[in-house]
């Protein structure tokens, strides 16, 4: 919460069209929880009227790191910023992942650009988390060593087998769940992956939190554009991804939007 003018400490392209940014902000760094996001003004209000919601990847000292894929004009302009430039950032926003000592065997599942908010989450579990990361191919593989440094184990999966195991990121997860391992699953990635993880959590009766994505307006819960369908005792209801989420318990969301 809060509007911050933050200096860019570093900005690097870590894979084709994937930009890794570290900004300076004592306020965000000391308040951010894993899974929360920033709402960033990319400049050029004619072509990017709206801010861009980007999840927080990591925080340390007075630094905040976020990583994004260039998808359109807004992210393109953001990627063109230089070290020392000032960014207008709202945040930290939204509700992040529920982290608790009660979870002894956390399973963390990320797909594509959905892996970025999971680094700071994995760090919270003191090398207890088992991490499953899915990529399209080896050219998209990033942050493997960073995840390995903070996790108990990291499984890499790719669509074409060019890195790690060939297949779906849920396959190694199923193996672990079959063996009775895992008392909570956290996931962020494309909706089909989230649906698969939600189904697995139900099948194996494991708690599960999902981080959702939706086109946003204000980012602070006022405009009601970033809705997702939720269900509670049979009643369907739209909730706000920005303010009620972006992290939801998997049994709360239908993923049918």
């Amino acid at each position, binding site marked *: 919460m809060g509007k911050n003018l933050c200096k860019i400490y570093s900005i690097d392209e870590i894979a084709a069209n994937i930009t890794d940014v570290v900004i300076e902000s004592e306020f965000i760094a000391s308040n951010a929880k894993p899974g929360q996001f920033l709402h960033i003004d990319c400049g050029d209000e004619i*072509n990017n009227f709206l801010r861009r919601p980007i999840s927080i990847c990591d925080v340390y000292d007075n630094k905040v790191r976020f990583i994004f894929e260039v998808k359109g004009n807004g992210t393109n302009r953001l990627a063109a910023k230089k070290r020392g430039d000032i960014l207008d950032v709202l945040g930290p926003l939204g509700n992040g992942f529920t982290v608790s000592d009660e979870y002894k065997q956390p399973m963390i599942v990320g797909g594509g650009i959905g892996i970025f908010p999971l680094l700071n989450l994995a760090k919270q579990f003191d090398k207890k988390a088992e991490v499953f990361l899915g990529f399209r191919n080896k050219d998209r593989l990033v942050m493997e060593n960073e995840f390995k440094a903070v996790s108990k184990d990291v499984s890499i999966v790719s669509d074409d087998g060019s890195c790690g195991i060939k297949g779906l990121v849920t396959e190694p997860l199923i193996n672990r769940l079959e063996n009775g391992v895992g008392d909570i699953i956290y996931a962020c990635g494309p909706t089909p992956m989230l649906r698969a993880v939600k189904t697995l959590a139900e099948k194996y009766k494991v708690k599960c939190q999902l981080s959702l994505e939706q086109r946003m*307006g204000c980012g602070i819960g006022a405009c009601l554009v970033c809705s997702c369908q939720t269900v509670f005792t049979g009643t369907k209801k739209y909730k706000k991804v920005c303010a009620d989420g972006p992290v939801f318990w998997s049994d709360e969301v239908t993923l049918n939007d």
Partner: protein
Amino acid sequence: MLAVIEGNDKTVVDMKVNIAGVEFKNPVITASGTFGFGKEFSQYIDISKLGGITLKGLTLAPREGNKPPRIAETPAGILNSVGLQNPGIEDFLKDELPAIKNLDTVLIANISGNTIEDYCSIAEKLSDSDIDMIEMNISCPNVKSGGIVFGTQPETVNKITGEVKKHCKKPLIVKLSPNVTDITEIARAAEAGGADALSLINTILGMKIDIHTKRPVLANNVGGLSGPAVKPVAVRMVWQVANAVKVPLIGMGGIMTGEDAVEFMLAGATAVAVGTGMFKDPEMSVKVVNGIEKYLKDKGINDVKELIGAVIPN
């Protein structure tokens, strides 16, 4: 006559305006649908610095709104198709109003319905509340029944305004749709029906198509355009309506700065509303207040009311 003396920071500027007997400490209001029920923005601004706030549109029963995606970005603006998602009038009065009723700003409730009876019933329920004014939305482009169907024919505008007036003890603002051939006809009909003030413009119906998937970006296919893209249309309509009616106007559409607000006031608006711009900058409403004040000081004008309708047409 405008004062022509050189202005400076010591100039005391009277920012107060009056609409239908309600005094606003300054002419800046938030636009309905962009400000929730107030609490979200209270982390970013001191709401008591605003002339008024217009709350998210209310209906008799709760409404879930349209399927997402509900927003698309367009040049200098956005399209939205929220579809009047709201908790319903009863939950609003119980859960939302208590938190904001003591704010030192004018509270304007915005109401919608499927039938004239719906509008009358909500207006009645709000009449005994701490709400200061009621804005009647007969111009929402995002719902299938009600909304805009009432707002595009002079006869129905006249009728619904007259009926709601009978049930409404608060000053009634009628919000006009720009999606009409001649907005002055609609404005006159609302005035004749007893509207105490008019607000304009609501969003302009628009569409965006993803050329890769060949599908509209909005799940609702079409939605309402807002933001700076609509500003010239809004200024023109305020000017036309100001020349057609006597009731005060609240002008809105793409206001991002004090200068934008001044333009609306010169066109004939007594007050202005800031909406979509707050998505760019949550502090924008207060910046617009400061911007108007700075303009007045720079020009040596000591009363904001001198701006109202002061455009000099060619």
